[in-house]
């Protein structure tokens, strides 16, 4: 251990990224590659009655046009991570607006795109239903999804609620939202005989390989699939599942007998991949006058599609966050003529927006400070991992100056602006999945770590490199980390904040194992100055092996291994358990009195992620998460036309996400105490924790500023007139 772990080491891949040396999936040069362009449906529901590719086929450079009439039948892979539940271009049915109906391949991208506009399609269209309000009476309790039921009952919430001293009964809504990573989804499929290599923008290469192999299950022989995704220009959950365009590209390349590349357009990213579903949440809290929760009834309604019923934004937090003996959670759904939704950064946010706003409403109802109210209701049964939540409230509250807050709405004014302070708890449930890492320390004294994990922009390359260098006692630049390739040992998908908890255990196990192996070789080698030193008395630092107490007796990794004549190889595979990470966020807003416009002017947040492995990348997650929370609260909104169920704003000029000027300086505080129950060097999953409470904290601050309680995001200024 050389103290590298924890330090805010700069990104080891930073230089490659800013110089363009980093090759993203669509950057790879593939000789003879054809370019694909998708034609998408302009109706949301119905059937293709006529499809005429002749003009497209006659267009310059076009090699083929694939449709449901000529593409071989694929197998629909199981629901996760293939949530789509059907494969397009297999029959004439249309399930949503923007569904692919034809796949054009041409010699150049421009030729493919132009030809795609020439494919003539006629439909028999039926009237779609586009919004929850239009079909609320059709809400139902869906079957469980991924083994998780949609109803949870503890105690008798309904009866307790009836007798509660204080009751809060409210509705909260949030619209459809899209991930919009800056790098569009892309696939390049290269067949060589029966082997398929996919250069894919994927958050999980191993799962993507499985899905593609499943789709070709009926082919004889079944193809041998490799998925490569070295760098990702953002994922946010969008690239966690595998979407139809990947399967179609693989199928089309096989038919065309040429490599094929497809890059979705920004507009296609709004219909051909996932989104955060539209939500309505009815929350009923019962409490005593002293602010103790006695009952919670949480009934949410999510948009589903006609073809599946997956609930991706669970209401788990309602069950776990606060101590309450009587809880009834129901996660209902309504089928609409829209694409399948999926996970999107911090799925808890929808639940938290309701719960943490309702808690603020309760705090005013019972006249108890919002922080104090939460402390009174802290769940004592939270596993070890919740212990430092109190510390988060304290640290962030103190740094924010919460003690000076006058709770009366409208009590703070500066010139034309109302100033408001609000807070919320942050909570995220992270995953941990089986992972393996393989470490080779070469005769040159350099180490290479391989694992089929991914860096989705969050810093995996950097943190893994730190852990390896630290475990071995090598300088950072003597360690190379290779990720994102199914040719490497299998590892977890990078989603649900699972990368660190899944991968760091195996990586550090391999690093320590390799270190011990090299030390053993050295002390057994009569040619080594360390010959005969007890292994336990050898220290490794900066590429050297020292005898503790006599630092003149030293050797180097390079010398030990070159004498040894072969590299040392170690594989690590440990299994971690999922858990929760907590935090607290405090927000200041300024609302222009007459115009209603809202500006977030200050954010302070504190977190307990166990041990912080890299303060710089961890802080990056806080800034990013807060920016997401601001977007969720103030602007993000996919507009779906009520009559056609077609997205009206499928571009970054009209789907607004925060710009820098919308995001104030963010103060991030970490409790930074090891969590021995996590075998990832005492670190828990963290990435998606920041942001979960931000929309509620902003709404709570707006209430404090103005006395206006907003329950529907986004809080655009018209809602405050």
């Amino acid at each position, binding site marked *: 251990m050389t103290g590298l772990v924890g330090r805010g080491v700069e990104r080891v891949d930073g230089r490659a990224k800013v110089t363009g040396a980093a090759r993203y999936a669509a950057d790879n040069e593939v000789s003879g590659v054809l370019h694909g362009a998708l034609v998408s449906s*302009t109706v949301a529901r119905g059937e293709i009655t006529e499809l005429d590719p002749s003009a497209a086929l006659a267009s310059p450079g076009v090699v083929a046009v694939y449709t449901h009439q000529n593409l071989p039948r694929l197998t629909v892979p199981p629901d996760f991570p293939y949530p789509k539940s059907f494969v397009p271009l297999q029959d004439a049915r249309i399930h949503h607006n923007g569904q692919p109906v034809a796949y054009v391949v041409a010699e150049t991208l*421009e030729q493919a795109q132009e030809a795609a*506009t020439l494919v003539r399609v006629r439909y028999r269209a039926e009237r779609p239903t586009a919004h929850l309000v239009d079909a609320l009476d059709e809400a139902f309790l869906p079957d469980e999804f991924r083994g998780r039921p949609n109803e949870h009952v503890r105690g008798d919430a309904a009866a307790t609620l009836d007798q509660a001293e204080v009751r809060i009964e409210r509705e909260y809504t949030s619209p459809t939202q899209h991930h919009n990573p800056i790098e569009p989804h892309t696939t390049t499929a290269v067949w060589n005989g029966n082997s398929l290599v996919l250069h894919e923008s994927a958050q999980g290469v191993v799962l993507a390989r499985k899905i593609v192999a499943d789709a070709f299950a009926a082919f004889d022989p079944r193809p041998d699939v490799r998925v490569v995704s070295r760098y990702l220009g953002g994922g946010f959950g969008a690239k966690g599942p595998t979407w139809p365009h990947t399967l179609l590209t693989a199928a089309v390349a096989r038919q065309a007998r040429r490599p094929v590349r497809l890059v979705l357009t920004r507009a296609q990213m709004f219909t051909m991949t996932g989104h955060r579903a539209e939500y309505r949440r009815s929350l009923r809290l019962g409490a005593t006058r002293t602010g103790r929760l006695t009952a919670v009834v949480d009934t949410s309604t999510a948009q589903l599609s006609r073809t599946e019923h997956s609930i991706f934004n669970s209401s788990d937090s309602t069950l776990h966050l606060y101590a309450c003996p009587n809880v009834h959670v129901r996660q209902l759904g309504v089928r609409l003529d829209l694409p399948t939704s999926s996970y999107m950064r911090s799925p808890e946010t929808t639940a938290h927006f309701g719960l943490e706003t309702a808690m603020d409403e309760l705090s005013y109802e019972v006249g108890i400070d919002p922080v104090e109210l939460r402390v009174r209701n802290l769940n004592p049964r939270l596993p070890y991992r919740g212990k430092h939540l109190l510390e988060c409230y304290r640290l962030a509250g103190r740094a924010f100056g919460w003690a000076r807050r006058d709770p009366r709405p409208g009590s703070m004014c500066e010139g034309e602006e109302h100033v408001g302070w609000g807070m919320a708890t942050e909570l995220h449930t992270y995953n941990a999945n089986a992972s393996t890492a393989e470490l080779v320390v070469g005769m040159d004294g350099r180490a290479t770590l391989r694992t089929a994990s991914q860096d989705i922009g969050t810093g995996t390359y950097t943190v893994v490199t730190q852990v390896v260098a630290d475990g071995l006692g090598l300088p950072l630049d003597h360690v190379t980390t290779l990720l994102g390739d199914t040719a490497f040992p299998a590892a977890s998908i990078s989603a649900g904040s699972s990368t660190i908890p899944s991968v760091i255990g195996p990586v550090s196990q391999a690093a320590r194992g390799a270190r011990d192996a090299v030390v053993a070789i050295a002390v057994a080698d009569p040619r080594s100055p360390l010959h005969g030193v007890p292994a336990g008395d050898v220290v490794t630092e900066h590429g050297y092996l020292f005898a503790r107490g006599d630092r003149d007796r030293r050797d180097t990794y390079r010398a030990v291994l070159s004498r040894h004549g072969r590299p040392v190889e170690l594989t690590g595979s440990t299994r971690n358990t999922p858990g929760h990470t907590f935090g607290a966020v405090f927000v200041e807003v300024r609302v222009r009195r007459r*115009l209603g416009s809202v*500006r977030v002017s200050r954010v302070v947040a504190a977190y307990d992620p166990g041990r912080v492995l890299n303060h710089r990348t961890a802080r990056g997650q806080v800034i990013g998460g807060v920016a997401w929370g601001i977007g969720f609260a*103030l602007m993000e909104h996919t507009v779906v036309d009520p009559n*056609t169920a077609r997205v009206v704003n499928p571009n970054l000029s009209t789907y607004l996400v*925060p710009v820098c*000027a919308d995001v104030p300086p963010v103060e991030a505080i970490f409790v930074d105490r090891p969590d021995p129950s996590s075998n990832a060097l005492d670190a828990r999953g963290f990435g998606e924790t920041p942001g979960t409470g931000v929309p509620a904290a902003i709404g709570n601050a707006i209430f404090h500023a103005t006395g206006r309680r907003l329950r529907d995001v986004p809080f655009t200024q018209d809602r405050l007139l």
Partner: protein
Amino acid sequence: MRNFGYTVARNPADAVRFAAGTPNSTFVAGGTDLLNLMRDGAEAHDHLVDVNRLGLDGIALDGAALRIGALARMRQVAEHREVRREFPVLSQALLASASPQVRNMAAIGGNLLQRTRCGYFRDPGSPCNKRVPGSGCPAIDGYNRGHAILGGSDHCIATHPSDLAVALTALDATVHLLGPDGTRAIPITELHLLPGATPHRETARRRGELITRVDVPRTGAAARSRYLKLRDRATFEFAVVSVAAALRLDGRTVRDVRLAFGGVGTRPWRDSRVEAALRGRSLTHPAIEAAGRVLVRDAEPREGNVFKVELVQRALASVLAELGGLR
């Protein structure tokens, strides 16, 4: 986007002659709107005539007017010292537009002729009377938060998106054109047309006419002017509602006032009745409120944009209170 030809014109007359003689051609300046429209499939042209090298990018102030070459960049005008001093509303409107990158590329003529941001218009998968005459207007019964409450018709309710045009409208600018039949000048208030039954006809510009210059008269009011832009995020976004105001007071009495509005009209909106309600009166909150009511008297809001009726009045009140030093 299909293939197109491209010619760089060397002088204004050549540009006009070439465009007039080339079927399905158009001018391109910064290309920041045109190329997006072509990529999105909202426009298609066989030939582009590049007008960036016509020597029309000067900015000059003389005794009578500010003369802005049509190919001056948004940034150049915004940062021009005399523009900032004598016509602050122009500089502010430009700086509140788009992003630094776009402002470096985009020219004044192109800015005035940029097309609506109505989402249906920019999506060839949707009907739209403006893009395909007679195909219908899905915005009227659909999503219309960004749309106009003034000047709309049963055929189209799209707003004109330019901030600069709003400021120029307040300042009574004149647009100079060169066409196959020679030069002419029209007030900016006559450049953009109301949609009526022909929303695809957007401007009074005739086929092949090149905007060469925009003149802004010097007035006492212009120097005391301001642009207020309200939008859904802090920067890099079009107006939900905007107000360009120029005010000259004599004591508390309004000597001269010029007002134009963005985000509310199907064209940069000017209504002389609003100014008449203020001119010669004492600048008070009740007077401003009365003027605001005049502005929205004929408003025809839809489900999604009804809030603009109130918001534009408050924006007007806010900007006039600030210009007039009212508390």
